[in-house]
């Protein structure tokens, strides 16, 4: 069910996300001081190549990582196997990638708002 290839993908995306998660938590602690507004968030992130790459790589890694993680649970807890398991794994990855990509573009693309 989890062969070496999926295991390595899961661990590599985890390693990629380790610094990103710490950065994300740091930004959250900083950003929530004095409340959140759309203008404040977008003022920081829009048009920034750095934040585009930061959150872009985050979204790619988390889509793969979450899809493999949920795949394990769907198999072990709900007994999903074979084609259904493959399909759902790819479906989760595609959904997260699409929604995450849209969010990253919305927040970091310049001149959007």
């Amino acid at each position: 069910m989890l062969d070496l290839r999926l295991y390595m993908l899961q661990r590599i995306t985890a390693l990629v996300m380790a610094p990103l998660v710490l950065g994300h938590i740091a930004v959250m602690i900083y950003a929530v001081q004095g409340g959140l507004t759309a203008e404040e968030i977008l003022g920081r992130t829009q048009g920034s190549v750095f934040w585009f790459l930061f959150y872009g790589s985050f979204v790619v890694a988390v889509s793969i990582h979450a899809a493999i993680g949920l795949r394990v649970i769907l198999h072990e807890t709900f007994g999903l196997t074979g084609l259904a398991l493959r399909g759902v794994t790819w479906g989760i990855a595609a959904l997260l990638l699409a929604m995450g990509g849209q969010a990253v573009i919305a927040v970091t693309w310049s001149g959007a708002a």
Partner: protein
Amino acid sequence: MNGSDAMLEVSVWRGTTSGGAYQDFEVPAYENQTILDVVSWIQHYADASLTYRFACRVGMCGSCAMMVNDQPRWTCRTHVKKVLKGRKLKVAPLRNLPVIKDLAADMDPFFDKWVAAGGAHQPSASRTEPIPPVDPQDPIRVEASAGIECINCSICYAACDTVAGNSDYLGPAALQRAWTLLNDAKHDAKDKILDAVSGSGGCHNCHSMGSCTAFCPNDLDPMSAIAGLKRATTRRFLRGGR
């Protein structure tokens, strides 16, 4: 518990994989008494049709493991006093295996996986060649030695929740055997082992929940052995060896 005045209330699983139920027995309690003694008493004095398995009675052969109060235990070395809840005992066949009858689990899947993980010995030299020297202090040999006291009782296999959820998973005992052979100077098919434990039921399914190590009656550490296999396969993957 003095003499045979006190009685134990023992629920014993009767049946097979396709169906069955717990049957209650009253068994005299003694000062010194193992779970296997209790099961044997039932078979001798209460119901001769009770099926169970044992051989050595001293924790060497690994054939008498059962679920005792929902935990996997070697019944010949488990004293009643240690696991008694009030006066109640519950004895069932090993978890994660088919049941042949009553307390006798079908060990075939367990040993099939042992072989599937590359557990059959492949000598690196023939009998005409000199015996390769084995230094007990060698760090690699120390890794191998850590797992060779496994008696194949299947307690780790019964304790493992990953086995419960994933029937293809090779399980702690088979993977520890593979790790032992991987570190054995006299074993030849090292790459075959890494292939065997890298498949869809291989070592990478382990979640390091450590029930194998917590329950092993011989205090072995299959979880760390499996971590060793993950390390070895990762290293081979990074070198492009897949």
